[in-house]
C-alpha cells in the first residue's frame, strides 16, 4: 500500500477525475442523477486518495518533496513528468480536494441555467485535474500545461452557465490570463537557457541559478515575466479588472472554485517558482509587489464600499484579501510567507463560503441588489447567521481563520527580509492595517443591510424564501467547521509549512546580508 502510494499516489489523485470524465462522456445527457453520482463518487475517490497521501505524509520532514514521481515526458527538451508534495503544496492540495466535492454536492439541486448537468460536471472534473496538477507539478513545462488546462473549463463555465453579461466576462477572464501566461512561458524558457543546463526541473533550476553568474538585469526581467503571469492570476492591482466581472457573472459553483482555488494558482506560483528560483530578483521586485499589494488592499476595500451588488462586493473583497497575501509574500520572511499561505487557505474557505451564501440568496430572492434585501435573519435565520459568521471570519475576527491570514502579515511587514527597506514596509504595514478597518466597515455594512432589519415589502411574504436545505448543509458544514478549527488551531497549518518556507526565506535572507 505504502509502496503503491509512493509510486503512483499523486498521479492517481491528479488523473482520477479524468476517469470520471471518460465514464460520463459515454452516458447520455438525460440521466442527470447518474451524472451527479459519478461526479460525486469520482471527486470523493480523488479526495480519498488525497487523504491517504496526507495521512502517509511525513510531517517531520515537510520541506522534502514526498511521493515524488519522475518520469520522462518530452526528452528532446528535458521536460519531465515530475510531481511531488511538500509542506507548501500540501495545504493547497487539501483545500482543492475539499472544495470540489462540496461544490458537486451543492450542484445536486443547483445546476444553473441552462441546465445540462453532464457538461457542467465534466468541466468541473477537468478543472479538478488542472488544479491538483498545478499544485503538485515540479517541472515548469508540466506546471504551465496544468496552469493553462484550468482556463478552458472555467471559460465555459462562465460563458455557458453565467449571468447576463457572461460573454464579456468569459472572454475577458480568458484573455487576461492568457496574456500573463504567455509572458510567463517566455520567462520559463529564458530560465531554461540562461542556466545553461537546459532543464525545467524547479529544484535544479533554483540550485543552478544560485551557482551561475546571471546578470541581475536578466534575472529582473525573467522575474518580471513570471510576475505578469502570476500577478494577473492572483489578481494584483492593476490587473484585477477581470476578477469582479468573472466573479459576478460566473455561476455560484464557478465563483466558489474561482475564489477558493483558482486565485491561489497565482500566489502559489510566486511561492513555489518565482521566489525560490530567483531570490535575488525577488528582493528587487518585493517593494513593487508590496506597493501594488497595499494599493490592492485599499482599492479593493473602497471598491467594496461602492458596490450595490452583493456578489460584486464579495469579488472586490477578494482583491483586498489577495492584497494581504501578496504583501505577506513580498516581505520575503518566514513569518510573512507562512501567513500568506495561511491567508490563501483561509481566503479560499471564507470567500468560497461567502459565494455559496450569495448563490443561495440569489436563488431565493432572484436578486443580489443589496438595497432590496434585508431582514434575512427573520426570514431565513440560519442563512443569515451563516452570512454573519462568514463575514466575521472575512474581516479577520480573532478566533476564526481569517485572522491568521491578515494579522501576521501586518506584523511581518514590520521587519521585512534583509535587503528590503524597513521604512517602506512599515508604511505598507500602516496602510494594510487601515485596510482592516475598511474591511470591517464594508462587511458590517453588508451584513447590516442584508441580514438585519425587517424584510423589504416585496419579499415579506415570498414563499420561495426558505432556510438552508440539506444539500446546502452538507456542502457548507465542513467549510464552516474548518473556519472555526483553523481559527483556534492555526498551528495545524503553520507547522506543516514551517520548514519549507523557512528554508526559502533563509535563502533570501542570505542574499540580503
Amino acid at each position, binding site marked *: 500500500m505504502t509502496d503503491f502510494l509512493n509510486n503512483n499516489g499523486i498521479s492517481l489523485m491528479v488523473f482520477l477525475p479524468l476517469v470520471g470524465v471518460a465514464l460520463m462522456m459515454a452516458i447520455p445527457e438525460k440521466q442527470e442523477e447518474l451524472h451527479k453520482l459519478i461526479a460525486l463518487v469520482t471527486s470523493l475517490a480523488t479526495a480519498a486518495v488525497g487523504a491517504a497521501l496526507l495521512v502517509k505524509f511525513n510531517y517531520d520532514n515537510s520541506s522534502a518533496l514526498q511521493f515524488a514521481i519522475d518520469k*520522462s*515526458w*518530452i*526528452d*528532446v*527538451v528535458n521536460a519531465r513528468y515530475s510531481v511531488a508534495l511538500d509542506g507548501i503544496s500540501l495545504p493547497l492540495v487539501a483545500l482543492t480536494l475539499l472544495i470540489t466535492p462540496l461544490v458537486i454536492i451543492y450542484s445536486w439541486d443547483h445546476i444553473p441555467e441552462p441546465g445540462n448537468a453532464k457538461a457542467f460536471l465534466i468541466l468541473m472534473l477537468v478543472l479538478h485535474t488542472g488544479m491538483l496538477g498545478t499544485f503538485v507539478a515540479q517541472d515548469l*513545462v508540466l506546471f*504551465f*500545461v496544468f496552469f*493553462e*488546462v484550468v*482556463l*478552458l473549463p472555467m*471559460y*465555459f463555465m462562465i*460563458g*455557458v452557465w453565467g449571468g447576463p453579461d*457572461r*460573454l464579456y466576462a*468569459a*472572454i475577458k477572464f*480568458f*484573455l487576461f490570463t*492568457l*496574456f500573463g501566461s*504567455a*509572458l510567463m*512561458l*517566455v520567462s520559463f*524558457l*529564458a530560465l*531554461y*537557457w*540562461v542556466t545553461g543546463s537546459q532543464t525545467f526541473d524547479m529544484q535544479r533550476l533554483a540550485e543552478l541559478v544560485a551557482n551561475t553568474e546571471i546578470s541581475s538585469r*536578466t534575472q529582473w526581467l525573467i522575474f518580471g515575466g513570471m510576475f505578469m503571469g502570476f500577478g494577473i492570476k492572483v489578481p494584483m492591482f492593476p490587473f484585477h479588472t477581470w476578477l469582479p466581472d468573472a466573479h459576478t457573472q460566473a455561476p455560484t459553483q464557478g465563483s466558489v472554485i474561482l475564489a477558493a482555488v483558482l486565485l491561489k494558482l497565482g500566489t502559489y506560483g510566486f511561492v513555489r517558482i518565482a521566489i525560490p528560483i530567483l531570490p535575488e530578483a525577488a528582493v528587487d521586485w518585493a517593494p513593487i509587489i508590496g506597493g501594488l499589494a497595499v494599493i490592492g488592499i485599499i482599492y479593493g476595500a473602497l471598491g467594496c464600499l461602492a458596490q450595490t451588488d452583493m456578489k460584486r462586493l464579495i469579488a472586490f473583497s477578494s482583491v483586498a484579501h489577495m492584497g494581504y497575501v501578496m504583501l505577506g509574500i513580498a516581505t520575503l520572511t518566514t513569518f510573512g510567507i507562512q501567513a500568506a499561505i495561511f491567508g490563501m487557505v483561509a481566503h479560499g474557505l471564507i470567500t468560497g463560503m461567502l459565494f455559496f451564501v450569495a448563490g443561495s440568496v440569489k436563488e431565493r430572492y432572484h436578486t443580489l441588489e443589496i438595497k432590496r434585501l434585508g431582514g434575512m435573519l427573520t426570514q431565513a435565520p440560519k442563512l443569515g447567521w451563516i452570512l454573519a459568521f462568514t463575514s466575521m471570519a472575512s474581516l479577520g475576527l480573532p478566533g476564526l481563520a481569517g485572522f491568521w491570514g491578515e494579522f501576521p502579515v501586518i506584523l511581518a511587514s514590520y521587519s521585512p527580509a534583509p535587503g528590503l527597506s524597513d521604512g517602506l514596509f512599515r508604511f505598507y504595514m500602516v496602510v494594510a492595517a487601515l485596510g482592516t478597518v475598511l474591511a470591517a466597515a464594508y462587511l458590517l455594512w453588508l451584513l447590516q443591510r442584508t441580514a438585519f432589519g425587517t424584510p423589504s415589502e416585496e419579499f415579506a411574504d415570498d414563499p420561495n424564501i426558505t432556510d438552508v436545505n440539506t444539500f446546502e448543509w452538507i456542502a457548507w458544514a465542513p467549510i464552516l467547521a474548518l473556519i472555526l478549527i483553523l481559527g483556534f488551531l492555526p498551528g495545524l497549518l503553520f507547522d506543516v509549512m514551517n520548514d519549507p518556507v523557512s528554508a526559502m526565506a533563509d535563502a533570501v535572507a542570505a542574499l540580503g546580508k
Partner: protein
Amino acid sequence: MLAAILAQVEQVPFNRPDIDWHAAAPELLLLAGGAIVTIVDLIWLERVRKLIPTLTSLTFLIALIPVITLWNDGGELPRTMFDGAYVVDEYSLVLKGLFLLSGYVIVLLSTNYMLEGDYYDSEYYQLISASIVGMLVMTSARDLVSIFVAIELVSIPAYLMAAWRKRDLRSNEAGLKYMLMGVFASGIMLYGMSILYGVSGSTKLVDIGAALTTGESVPLITLAVVFTIIGFGFKVSAVPFHTWAPDTYEGAPTPLTAFLAVASKAAGFVALISVVLFAFPGQAAVVEPLLWVLSAASMTVGNLIAMRQSNIVRMLAYSGVAQAGYMLAPLAVFSSRPDQAASAIVTYLVIYAAMNLGAFAVVIAVARKTRSGEISSYAGMFSYAPGLTVVMTAFLFSLAGIPPVGGWWAKFEVFRVLTADGNTWGVALAVVAAVNSVLAAYYYLVIAKQMWFVSAPNDDKAPIVIPSSLQAALALTVVFTILAGTVLLGQIANLTDFSLVN
C-alpha cells in the same frame, strides 16, 4: 552547322547518373498513381466517378510505404542523388510523410464536396496528386533549379484548382488573383536566383552558401538574397505579400482552401528553410532582420485583421497569415542554431497541418447545413451538433496555443528557439509573439462563443449530416491534435529532432 554541333555532342560521353530507386520511390509511386487515375478516368468515364477519390487516396497511402521503409533504414540516411542536388534525409522524410498524409486528408475533405457539386472531379484529383508530387520533390531539392521546378509544380495545379467553381465569379477571381500574384512572385524569385547563380557560378545551394560566406556586404548579393526571400514571402503569404490569400481562400472551393492553407504553405516553408539554411548562412546579417520584420508584421497584421472578419474562411486565411508569422520567427534567429530553427518550423508545420485541416473540415461540414461561411451561422451549434462543437473547439484552442491540445507545443518550440542564447532580438520577437497569441485567442474565442454561448438562429436545430469521408478526416485530425499536445508529444518531438546542417 547543326551537324557540327551534333558531332561535338557525340564526343561527350553521356553517363547516366546513378538513381537511388528506393529514395525516389515515393515521388515515382505518386506520379504513377496520378497516371493510373487519369487512365482509369479516360477509359471508364462516368462509371467510375465515385471510385476516383478512393483510388487517389490509396495512391497517397501507397506512396507512404517507401517513406516509412526509408525512415526505418536509418543507417543509410542521408541518401544523395544527382551530385547532391537531391537529398533524402530525416528532414525530408518527415515532411514527405506530412505532405502525403495532408493530401490524404484533403482527398477525404474533397470527396463529397466534389461529388455533390457540378464539377469535373477526376481532373481535380489528378491535379492534387501532381501538386503533392511537387511538394515531395521540394523536400529533397537542394538545388535552385529543382527548387524552382518543384515550386511551379506545386503552384500551377493550385492556380487551376482555385478557379474550379467556374460558374462562380468569386472563384474566377480567386484563381486569377492567385495566379497573377504567384507568377509575379516567381518572377521576382527567379531574378534573385539568377543573380545568385551569376555570383556563385553554381545552382547547388551548398555551393552558393560557400560562395556567399565572404561576409562582405555586396549590394548585388544583398539584392539577390532579398529578392529570393520576397518570392518565398508570397508563397507563404507573409505580410506585406499576403494580399492574395483572403480573396483566393474565400473564392476557391473550400477543400482546396484547406490545401492552400496547409500543404501549399508548408511547401513554401520547406523551400525557404532549405534556401536560408544552406545557401544563406553567410548572409545572416541580411536575412535575419528581413525575416524578423516579415515575421513580426505577419503576426500582428494577420491577427489584427482576422479580428475584424465576419466570414470564417477569411478569418482562417488571416489567421493563417499570422501563423506564418510564428513559423517565420525561428528563421529570424537561425544563424546560431540552424538545426533547432528548422526543427521548430517542421514541428509547427506538422501540428498546424492537423489542426488547420481539421478546422476546415468542420467548416465544410457546417456549410453542408447552413450553406454559409458567416461566423454568425455557427450560433448555437452546441445545441444541435455537440460532437462537432467539441471537435471544433479542440481545433480552435489548438490554433490559439492553449494546452492540452497540440498547438501549444508548436508555439513552445518556436519560443524555445527564440529565447535561446538570450539574443535580444530573439527575446523581443518572442514577446511580440506572446502578445500576439492573446490577440489571436480573441477571434478564436469569438467562434467558440458563437458555438457554445449563443442560441441557434430561428431555433433551427436540425442536425448536421456528416458523410463518412468527412467523418474520417475529422477523426484523424482531432485525434492527432489532441494527442499531439499530451501523450504523443515526446514522439513528435523525437520525430522532428533531426540534424539538417552538418
